[in-house]
């Protein structure tokens, strides 16, 4: 059978980690980066070099079934691992209100018993314990009530695949494997976090504010009441910041209640738990090489660095019998993620499997029922809002909102998601005064975590439906109302800062208004209803702004070329389908005139060793004094790499690539070009013009300036190598809502880059680190920003409602997006299309019960959880418009998350337009609609 010839190795490889910091503490000792990397098989001919790529870098690999995903690999594929592999499976609690007694494997008979059973007692003996965001028993101990539905109670390990396979089948069909006794009720847990965001504007929209989270600090509860409700500080206008927040918040709510903030519009909105349903259920491999004290793991993860840190931390805290002093990670492609593989607990169970597999490699692979049972969910959120509106003008006066997020059984990212939920709650609107509280509660539901839109979807949907209701009641055009109140450039947000760059909210609204779908809606309605008398036609609009970036983003990039002009780039991220790998290659062309030829994604690994980076502290909570002290070490950075997410790839990861490209241009290609243009007597062809770096232009892959001979990249590359100039640049960049900057001395020049670490390569020499000077990390207080990078998006949705049964048919969608500069338009539009489909699903179909009827009971799969099919998407009636960038050097924005958001309220608003009923929950099913017809 003929095979495609790859330009790089087809399979994954990793490299050894450096040692575990056994005495790690927050700031006393720095933690070195672990090493691991993934390779990328490249599609031949993917790049045309200049201009847009022909197809995605990983296109060939994916379409021919190459081994790419964690689920594809076995021990035999792993270099240096023994071939023989064990298989593990988890047993889960499907009850969280009774004491767990024991497991009963008698139904397996004698020939299907496992070779090893691991329980809480075993973990207690070895001191294996989850802490931090995973804190909670990894296995429910016998005699205790499970912390949450779906909590694992034991792991079974089999040496033989055939036995494992038969046992698994047998267990799937058998009741009573996990037995329970006394009813205790659910375990009560403390809330995971809460904050209050209160803002009172000063004289104008652009500040200064009288009071804001950015100006006065974030406010946490003084305590939690018995039911978990936060108790806020006593209201005192002249008290401390928290007391002032309470006073301002109380005043805003009183004015809303008394009608002194315009007419009050109230809403209670409920969103459900959802599953990301990425196509590849979670799995991984682990191997504990006891003789060498080395632990190797392969797992699909959005955050490889954090994954390795988590495992190392698990072992570091364990008893010495857990003999691990080196952790080695392999991070393959992801078969989808949508946030669900961001700090997933599967990693810890892989670590346990590896430790208890008697020195054999072991595989743990969830089936889809188990994925529903254990995998991270989108938070169910209760949203209670009051919006004060001037009834004459439609101007928003004040906004109060209380958000309650159901975080499920473990903390995960709930506290952070609750904050973003609050920060997103105003959607795209400016409010002179606002008071928003948010709390993430523990419950016995399956753990909720990061999921596409990171807490922003739910409150924005609620707000967009509320705004539509306001428009309807005040008889104001919904787009006009949005325009009246849109957050504009320089306006202060809920946290009291101006967003980064120009806010193109009005451009988005103008585009929505111009769209044929909106402009011709009445004609379309008449025509459709005439042809379909049993159906009602409706059109709805919605818009949103949503943040990208996390406020603790680190990115690594290395860009170099050989003497033949072949450009290679390595960047620190993982590929989860977003096409980051392709975007990275394209962004290399910002300063090099064409895309990179070879791309490698390496989140943490030996390639970055020349930078010698160290980190310590929590970038969210570090004090200014601690940051200043740590920064004196020229190798210290607040965060080494970010977790991969769709909101980080374009903006953060490719920023580092672009900075590296600038370095190559300035210190390699530019002096080489000068040398060529000055060849010959009397200063050569360049003698007659004053050509500077700023004059350089790439035209059709050739470098020219002010009429100088255009030089092909290949010719320049050879010249750079011959002259021993800079042929490679490796950088680290950090962003806490602004980029860190530093000076670097290269020869006689000082380069002030939006980077905080640099290594260069001259000719074919090794990489050499360059010490930074005058580093300016974003101030620690910048963390109060909450979010300052925003994309804007709007949607117009047309649908029909069958009056006989409530069925909805989404007929046509128009969406307009501000994504900054689009690096690869086909990837941007593909992402938008997929996000729209997911939005349709969330609006109309996707729902998970939280508790005993929900996925924690082990009985959920995609036959019950409705994931949208092609027939439910208007495949040929989707118009995607992208605002043109303001200039050719606009940075790319993270946009993959926001494109999902407006479709959801757009559908609800269209349903209201069609049938006259306003739903304030998700999903809105045919049954719901039939019930009001």
């Amino acid at each position, binding site marked *: *059978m*003929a095979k*495609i*010839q790859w330009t790089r190795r087809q399979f994954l490889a990793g490299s050894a980690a450096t040692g575990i910091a056994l005495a790690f503490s927050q700031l006393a000792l720095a933690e070195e980066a672990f090493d691991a990397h993934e390779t990328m098989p490249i*599609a*031949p001919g993917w790049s045309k070099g200049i201009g847009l790529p022909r*197809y*995605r870098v*990983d*296109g060939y*690999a*994916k*379409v*021919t*079934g190459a*081994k*790419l*995903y964690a*689920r*594809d*690999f*076995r021990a*035999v594929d792993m270099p240096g691992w023994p071939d023989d592999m064990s298989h593990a499976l988890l047993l889960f609690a499907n009850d969280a209100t009774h004491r767990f007694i024991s497991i009963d494997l008698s139904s397996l008979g004698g*020939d299907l018993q496992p070779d090893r059973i691991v329980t809480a007692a075993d973990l207690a003996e070895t001191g294996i314990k989850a802490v931090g965001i995973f804190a909670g028993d990894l296995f429910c101990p016998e005699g205790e009530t499970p912390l949450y539905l779906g909590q694992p109670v034991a792991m079974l390990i089999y040496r033989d*695949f*055939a036995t494992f*396979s*038969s046992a698994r*089948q047998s267990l799937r069909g058998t009741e009573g494997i996990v037995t329970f006794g006394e009813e205790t009720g659910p375990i009560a847990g403390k809330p995971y976090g809460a904050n209050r965001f209160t803002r009172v504007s000063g004289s104008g929209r652009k500040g200064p504010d009288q009071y804001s989270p950015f100006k006065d600090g974030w406010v946490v509860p003084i305590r939690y009441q018995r039911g978990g409700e936060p108790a806020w500080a006593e209201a005192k206008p002249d008290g401390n910041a928290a007391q002032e927040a309470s006073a301002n918040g109380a005043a805003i709510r009183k004015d809303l209640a008394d009608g002194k903030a315009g007419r009050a519009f109230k809403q209670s909105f409920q969103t459900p738990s959802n599953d990301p349903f*990425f*196509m*590849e*259920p979670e799995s991984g491999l682990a191997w504990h090489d006891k003789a060498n004290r080395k632990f190797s793991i392969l797992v699909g993860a959005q955050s490889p660095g954090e994954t390795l840190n988590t495992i190392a931390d698990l072992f570091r805290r364990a008893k010495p019998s857990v003999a691990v002093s080196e952790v080695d990670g392999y991070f393959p*492609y992801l*078969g*989808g*993620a*949508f946030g669900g593989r961001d700090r997933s607990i599967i990693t810890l169970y892989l670590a346990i499997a590896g430790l208890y597999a008697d020195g054999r490699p072991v595989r743990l692979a969830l*089936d*889809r*029922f188990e994925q529903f049972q254990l995998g991270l969910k989108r938070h169910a959120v209760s949203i209670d809002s009051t919006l004060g509106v001037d009834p004459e003008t439609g101007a928003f006066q004040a906004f109060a909102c209380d958000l309650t997020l159901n975080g499920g059984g473990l903390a995960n990212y709930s506290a952070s998601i609750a904050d973003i939920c609050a920060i997103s709650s105003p959607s795209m609107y400016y409010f002179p005064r606002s008071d928003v509280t948010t709390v993430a509660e523990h419950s016995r539901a399956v753990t909720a975590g990061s999921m596409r839109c990171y807490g922003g979807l739910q409150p924005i949907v609620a707000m967009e439906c509320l705004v539509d209701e306001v428009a309807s009641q005040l008889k104001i055009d919904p787009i006009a109302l949005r325009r009246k109140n849109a957050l504009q450039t320089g306006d202060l947000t809920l946290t009291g800062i101006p967003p980064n760059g120009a806010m193109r909210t009005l451009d988005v609204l103008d585009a929505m208004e111009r769209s044929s779908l909106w402009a011709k809606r009445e004609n379309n309605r008449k025509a459709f209803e005439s042809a379909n008398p049993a159906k009602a036609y409706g059109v709805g609009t919605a818009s949103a702004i949503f943040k990208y970036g996390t406020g603790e983003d680190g990115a690594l990039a290395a860009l170099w070329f050989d003497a033949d002009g072949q450009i290679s780039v390595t960047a620190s991220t993982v590929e989860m*389908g977003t*096409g980051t790998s392709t975007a990275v290659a394209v962004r290399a062309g910002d300063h090099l005139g064409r895309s990179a030829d070879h791309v490698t994604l390496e989140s943490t690994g030996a390639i970055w060793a020349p930078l010698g980076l160290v980190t310590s502290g929590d970038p969210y909570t570090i004090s200014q004094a601690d940051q200043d002290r740590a920064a004196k070490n020229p190798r210290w950075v607040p965060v080494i790499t970010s977790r991969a997410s769709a909101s980080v790839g374009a903006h953060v990861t490719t920023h580092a690539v672009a900075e590296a490209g600038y370095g190559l241009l300035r210190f390699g290609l530019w002096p080489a070009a000068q040398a060529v243009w000055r060849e010959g007597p009397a200063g050569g062809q360049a003698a007659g013009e004053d050509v500077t770096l700023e004059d350089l232009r790439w035209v059709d892959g050739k470098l020219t300036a002010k009429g100088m001979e255009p030089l092909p990249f290949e010719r320049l590359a050879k010249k750079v190598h011959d002259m021993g100039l800079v042929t490679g640049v490796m950088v680290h960049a950090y962003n806490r809502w602004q980029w860190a900057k530093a000076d670097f001395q290269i020869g006689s020049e000082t380069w002030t880059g939006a980077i905080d670490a640099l290594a260069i390569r001259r000719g074919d020499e090794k990489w050499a680190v360059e010490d930074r000077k005058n580093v300016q990390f974003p101030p620690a207080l910048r963390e109060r920003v909450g979010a300052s990078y925003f994309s804007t998006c709007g949607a117009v949705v047309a649908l029909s409602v069958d009056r006989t049964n409530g069925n909805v048919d989404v007929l046509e969608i128009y969406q307009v997006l501000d994504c900054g500069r689009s690096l690869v338009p*086909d*990837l941007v539009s*593909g*992402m938008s*299309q*997929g996000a729209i*489909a997911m939005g349709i699903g969330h609006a109309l179909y996707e729902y998970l019960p939280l508790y005993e009827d929900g996925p924690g009971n082990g009985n959920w*799969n*995609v*036959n019950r959880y409705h*994931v949208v*099919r*092609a*027939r439910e*998407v208007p*495949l040929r009636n*989707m118009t995607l418009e992208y605002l043109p960038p303001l200039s050719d050097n606009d940075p790319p924005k993270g946009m993959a998350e926001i494109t999902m958001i407006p479709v959801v309220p757009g559908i609800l608003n269209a349903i209201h337009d069609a049938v006259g009923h306003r739903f304030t929950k998700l999903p809105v099913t045919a049954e719901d609609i039939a019930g009001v017809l």
Partner: protein
Amino acid sequence: MATTKLSMTVNGQPVGPHEVPDGLAMVDFLHEYLGLAGTKYGCGIGVCHACVVIVDEPDGTSRTMRTCINGAADFAGKAVRTVEGHARDGKLSDVQQAFVDHFSFQCGYCTAGFVNEATRLVEELERKPIAESQVEAKLAEALGEHICRCTGYVRYYEAMRDLILSNPRLSKEA
């Protein structure tokens, strides 16, 4: 533990006999016994269709079968084609090339199922072309049960629409 010995042809190559546990799913047989990881496990209950392979019948027709709900024993003696078997001599099949050219997939995990189903469809049309006006319905019939979570399906359908409409052997104007 009861076992079965089975043999079959996979991508034109005879495989087996392999002794496998009764009830072993075909997708597990492909992965664990043949090292062919291209066929993907998605749901395990036959709903998402990521796991389909092509089975070639003796009469020259082909059908797709899900490998998560059908046991390896159900494929004994059959001629099976997986996603790994379509490219030849360094060249993608027309279906594969169409998906690549159209940026049809993102994470790519569902792609093998789409490739196999679309390939079966194209072969069916080669035997019996349809009118252009029937293409959309035919695509929905063939691909309508395949789940993709990343793409919204738009570019998968675009690729197949273009492939079929541009080839007079597959579709005709009337």
